[in-house]
C-alpha cells in the first residue's frame, strides 16, 4: 500500500511539474527561445504573493488573481523591450540574457526578502486530506493542483487549437517570416506568448509556495524539473508535458520511498533514461523535415 501511495502522490506531484513546464514549452514552441529564468519568475511570483498576503491580508489563492496578471504584464514588457531584440540571432543570446535575468531576480529577492525561507498559508486546505479507503489518502491541495494543471492545459490546448491567436502561434512557429506577410505582428504575438507563459508559471509559483517553503534560490531547481518534464513528454505536445510531469513526479516519490535521499536522483535517472532511449521524448509531434 505504501508503494501505491507513493505512485498516487507522484502522479499528483506531476501536475505541479506540468504547471512549471507548460510556459517553458509554450515559449520554446512559439519562438524557439529558452527562458533560463523561468523558474526564477515563478519564485518571483511567489514572493509577490507573499507581499500581497501581508499587505492586503489576502488568502494566497486570492492573491493569485492579482499576481498572475502582474506577471503577465511583466512578461509582455520583458518580451517587447528586451527579448524581441534578441530574436533571429540564434539561441545563444537569449540563453545568456535570460541567465542574466535569473541572477538578477535571485539577487534582487535576496536583497529585499533576505535568505529566510517563506511559505504561503491558505488557511488549512494544504493539510486537509481525502481518504480514498484502504489506508490511502491524498491531500486536497495536491488533488486541486493536479485538477488545476489539467484544466489549464486543456484551456491552453483549446486556445492553441481553436482560436485565431492560437493559429497565429502555430503559423509563426512554422515560419515567422511568412506569418508576418499574412499580417501577423510577430513581436506583439511573442509578447502575448510570454505574458501567457509567465501568468501560468506565476500560478505554479504560488502553488509551490503553498505546498512547501521556498527561498530566493528555489528557482533553478524548478527550471530543471520543468525542463525534464518537457523533454520526457516531448516538445510540442501539451498533454505530453503533463505525462512527462507525472513520470518525473512518480519517479521522485517512488525513489524517495526506496530511500529518503533518492527522490530527486531517481527523477534525474529516469529523465536520462528517456533522453537515451527516446531523445525526442515520448509524445513528440512527428515533424516533417523539408
Amino acid at each position, binding site marked *: 500500500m505504501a508503494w501505491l501511495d507513493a505512485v498516487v502522490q507522484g502522479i499528483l506531484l506531476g501536475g505541479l511539474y506540468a504547471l512549471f513546464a507548460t510556459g517553458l514549452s509554450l515559449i520554446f514552441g512559439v519562438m524557439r527561445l529558452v527562458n533560463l529564468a523561468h523558474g526564477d519568475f515563478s519564485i518571483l511570483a511567489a514572493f509577490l504573493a507573499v507581499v500581497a498576503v501581508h499587505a492586503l491580508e489576502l488568502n494566497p489563492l486570492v492573491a493569485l488573481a492579482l499576481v498572475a496578471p502582474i506577471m503577465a504584464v511583466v512578461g509582455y514588457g520583458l518580451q517587447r523591450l528586451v527579448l524581441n531584440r534578441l530574436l533571429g540571432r540564434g539561441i545563444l543570446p537569449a540563453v545568456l540574457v535570460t541567465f542574466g535575468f535569473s541572477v538578477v531576480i535571485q539577487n534582487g529577492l535576496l536583497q529585499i526578502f533576505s535568505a529566510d525561507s517563506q511559505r504561503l498559508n491558505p488557511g488549512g486546505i494544504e493539510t486537509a486530506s481525502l481518504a480514498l479507503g484502504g489506508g490511502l489518502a491524498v491531500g486536497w491541495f495536491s488533488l486541486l493542483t493536479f485538477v488545476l494543471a489539467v484544466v489549464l492545459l486543456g484551456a491552453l490546448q483549446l486556445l492553441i487549437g481553436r482560436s485565431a491567436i492560437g493559429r497565429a502561434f502555430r503559423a509563426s512557429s512554422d515560419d515567422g517570416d511568412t506569418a508576418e*506577410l499574412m499580417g501577423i505582428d510577430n513581436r506583439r504575438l511573442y509578447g502575448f506568448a510570454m505574458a501567457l507563459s509567465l501568468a501560468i508559471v506565476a500560478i505554479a509559483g504560488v502553488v509551490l509556495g503553498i505546498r512547501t517553503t521556498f527561498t530566493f534560490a528555489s528557482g533553478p531547481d524548478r527550471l530543471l524539473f520543468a525542463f525534464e518534464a518537457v523533454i520526457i513528454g516531448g516538445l510540442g505536445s501539451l498533454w505530453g508535458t503533463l505525462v512527462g510531469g507525472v513520470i518525473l513526479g512518480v519517479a521522485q516519490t517512488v525513489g524517495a520511498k526506496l530511500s529518503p535521499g533518492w527522490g530527486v536522483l531517481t527523477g534525474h535517472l529516469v529523465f536520462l533514461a528517456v533522453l537515451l532511449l527516446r531523445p525526442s521524448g515520448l509524445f513528440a509531434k512527428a515533424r516533417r523535415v523539408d
Partner: protein
Amino acid sequence: MSLLAVRELSTFYGDFQALFGISLEVAEGETVAVIGANGAGKTTFLRTLAGALPAARGSIALAGQLVGNRPPHALVDLGIVLVPEGRKIFPSLSVRENLEIGAFRRRPGPWTLERIHRLFPILDERRDQPGTNLSGGEQQMLAIGRGLMANPRLLLVDEISLGLAPVVVKHLYAVLTDIAREGTTLLVVEQDVSQVLAVAQRVYCFRKGAVSLAGAPERLSRAEIAAAYFGA
C-alpha cells in the same frame, strides 16, 4: 491616381544592389505583369513592396499615401498582400486554418471563405487536412486563397507557375482572371511569359534590376520582348 506608384526604387542585400531605380504604376482594378529572367529582381521587387525587404532609395505610394519601409503586417493592414514564391503553406495548420490565417487582419471587402471555396472547391473538400498534404497546384490555390482572405487592395503574386504542370498553370491563370474580374488589383511576377501576357493589361520587363521594357502586351512584338528579356 494610380493605386500603386513606385518611383526610383532601389533595394540592396547588404552591399549587393538588386534593384536600380525601378519606377512602376498599377491602376485600380488593373492586372499588371512583371516578367524577366532569373535574377532580374522580380521577387526582390515584390518582397520590397510587401515590406519583407527594406527600400534603400525611392518611394512606394498606395493610393497617394507613402507606405515605404513599413513592416509587412502593417502593409497587410493597408491592403498590400503578397502570395509568396514557393507558396509557403503552414504545415501545422489545416487547409481551412491556412485560409483563416490570411484573415488575421482582414479588411472589409468581397472575399469570404465561401467565395474562395467557390473559386477553388478542392480547398473546401480537403479543408481538414494539413495544408502541406495538398499537391503543388492545390497548395498554390491555397496560397492565393489565403492572400485573398485579407481582402487586399493590391495582391502581389510571385511565380505561381513555379514547378507546376502546364495544365495546372493554365487553370491558375484562368482563376486569376476571375479574381481580377471581381475588382481585385493584381501585380503578377512570372517567368512563364505566355500565360501572364494573356491576362495582363500592361507588362513591365525587368533585366538586371531595372525596367527594360514597359507597355501593353498587344502593342509589343515578340522580338521587342525577347530583346528586353534576354538583352540584345
